[in-house]
């Protein structure tokens, strides 16, 4: 059976139409000796043998399941209850696609609606969309929404230097060519006050992160203050958060944020080499028509029964074309479902417990490291990540930690912030046992002082 639908006669007619006598002539630009190179492939092996080989290769990776890990910087190692994988693996849910037909998608739509309800409660906001790709796209979409709210008359976007470097990069990629001034992160040490000082009547939004990229928490009173200053300029305040931290901290929605965004991976999604992931996006109801992404809504059918639909679609590209509020007409359904299953299985008390464990373990580790000669922990309130000034380069330290002690060290900040030489961003979650932390501290001492 032929899988190529056109016949030899069809092909001849096509060649004639374009004035070429043989198919081979189309490849004339590829040198003869490279057209059909001899492929030096190994002899074929059995499935059993190939699985063994792939397994051997996979074992050469240092994975968090078998290696103590103190690396965070945006992707976090958390315990994922088995029920999460069970729910997302059900065939009814097992598609990455956002459904278009409510008639055959009630389960998926309800799951998205439940996800939105949880994110809205967690962030202290009124509405959540069905999710974006990751924390970076959510942040960039929040900036676009603020530009829409300002009817594109406001051309300035203020970014705090504490916002994840990747998120800031994506904001710049998204907005290039729009004639905007994206500023605020030139001085790496600018705090909330300095960030607020950059907000003026031409500013569409101010974006901050708490806990920020360095793990530091912006105090609730400082965030409230910032919100007042931003609103006095007629701009929006966008706050990026770590959702796990909201088990313990006051949600930004209660402190005056207009949009709350963030990376949702920590909620029941594996780190998986950096993705796929999800970005959450929550906001206030009065801006719903300027918001991005898809929104599942609850409705009633003709018989009065509860049903779910995608709502407010007039914002989206398939209806509003070039005037759409966003280029994104999809979501990360399966990842959002995992987040919803995770939050459901933990409940409010479980989430608080996870957040407490993260906080306590990170503070236990920081206290241990602060006692080491040559190491200092940067001061300030933090959640589960903190900056350590080390006696030597972090890349070298990390190599020693791994080679001699089998430990994955923290993030080397100099790779993103050139002025932060010898600075390691250390992360602890509920996955780091006390014994692991003790070993990490003594390994650091050894590696730092030889």
């Amino acid at each position, binding site marked *: 059976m032929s899988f190529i639908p056109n016949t030899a006669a069809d092909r001849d007619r096509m060649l004639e139409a374009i004035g070429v006598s043989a198919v081979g002539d189309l490849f004339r630009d590829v040198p003869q000796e490279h057209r059909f190179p001899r492929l030096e492939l190994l002899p074929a092996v059995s499935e059993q043998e190939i699985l063994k080989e792939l397994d051997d290769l996979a074992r050469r990776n240092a994975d968090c399941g078998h290696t103590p890990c103190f690396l965070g910087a945006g992707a976090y190692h958390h315990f994922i209850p088995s029920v999460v994988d069970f729910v997302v693996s059900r065939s009814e849910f097992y598609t990455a696609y956002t459904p278009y037909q409510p008639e055959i998608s009630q389960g998926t739509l309800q799951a998205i609606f439940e996800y939105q309800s949880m994110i809205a409660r967690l962030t202290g906001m009124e509405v959540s969309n069905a999710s974006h790709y990751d924390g970076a796209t959510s942040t960039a979409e929040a900036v676009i929404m603020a530009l829409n709210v300002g009817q594109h008359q406001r051309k300035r976007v203020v970014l705090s230097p504490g916002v994840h470097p990747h998120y800031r990069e994506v904001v710049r990629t998204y907005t290039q060519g729009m004639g905007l001034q994206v500023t605020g992160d030139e001085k790496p040490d600018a705090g909330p006050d300095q960030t607020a000082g950059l907000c003026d009547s031409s500013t569409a939004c101010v974006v901050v992160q708490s806990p920020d990229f360095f793990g530091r928490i912006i105090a609730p009173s400082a965030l409230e203050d910032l919100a007042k200053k931003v609103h006095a300029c007629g701009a929006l305040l966008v706050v990026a958060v770590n959702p796990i931290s909201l088990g313990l901290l006051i949600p930004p929605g209660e402190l005056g944020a207009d949009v709350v965004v963030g990376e949702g991976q920590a909620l029941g999604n594996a780190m998986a080499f950096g993705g796929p992931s999800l970005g959450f996006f929550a906001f206030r109801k009065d801006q719903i*028509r300027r918001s991005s992404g898809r929104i599942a809504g609850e409705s009633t059918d003709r018989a009065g029964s509860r049903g779910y639909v995608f709502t407010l679609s*007039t914002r989206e590209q398939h209806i*509003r074309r070039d005037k759409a509020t966003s280029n994104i007409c999809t979501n990360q359904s399966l990842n959002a479902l995992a987040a919803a299953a995770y939050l459901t299985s933990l409940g409010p008390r479980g989430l608080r417990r996870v957040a407490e464990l993260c906080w306590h373990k990170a503070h236990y580790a920081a206290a241990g490291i602060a006692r080491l000669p040559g190491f200092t922990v940067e001061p300030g309130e933090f959640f589960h990540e903190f900056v350590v000034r080390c006696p030597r380069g972090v890349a070298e330290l990390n190599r020693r930690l791994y080679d001699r002690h089998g430990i994955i060290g923290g993030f080397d900040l100099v790779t993103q912030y050139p002025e932060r030489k010898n600075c390691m961003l250390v992360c602890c979650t509920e996955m780091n046992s006390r014994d692991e932390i003790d070993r990490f501290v003594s390994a650091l001492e050894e590696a730092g002082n030889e």
Partner: protein
Amino acid sequence: MEYRFDEKARYSKTHEWVRVEGGQAVIGISDYAQNKLSDVVFVELPALGKELRAGAACMVIESVKAAEEVFAPVSGAVVSRNEKLEKAPELVNKDPFGDGWLVKVTLSDPREVDSLLDVAAYRKLVETL
């Protein structure tokens, strides 16, 4: 299909109407336009003071099946908005020439009104559609 028309209004080819009342121009969309849009669910009115330019898009009307731009039939600054539409956008369907008006503007060039279609010409235009 029988459409309603307002004898006193002038019309644009893109189905907006203008009625001059006491030096101000009231702007709305025609019965034909509301009928084609079907049930209106949201009207995004321009801000007070905004300068509208004749022929340029000045607001968006959303219905259950579409989101369409409204083009300003005349130039002028917005002095009044039909705030009732926020709670009751269906007024655009029910009474397009009355309670369903959109904005009032101060005319920056009254001659623009004369260049618009009169009701007879607009009626003829609708009949050909």
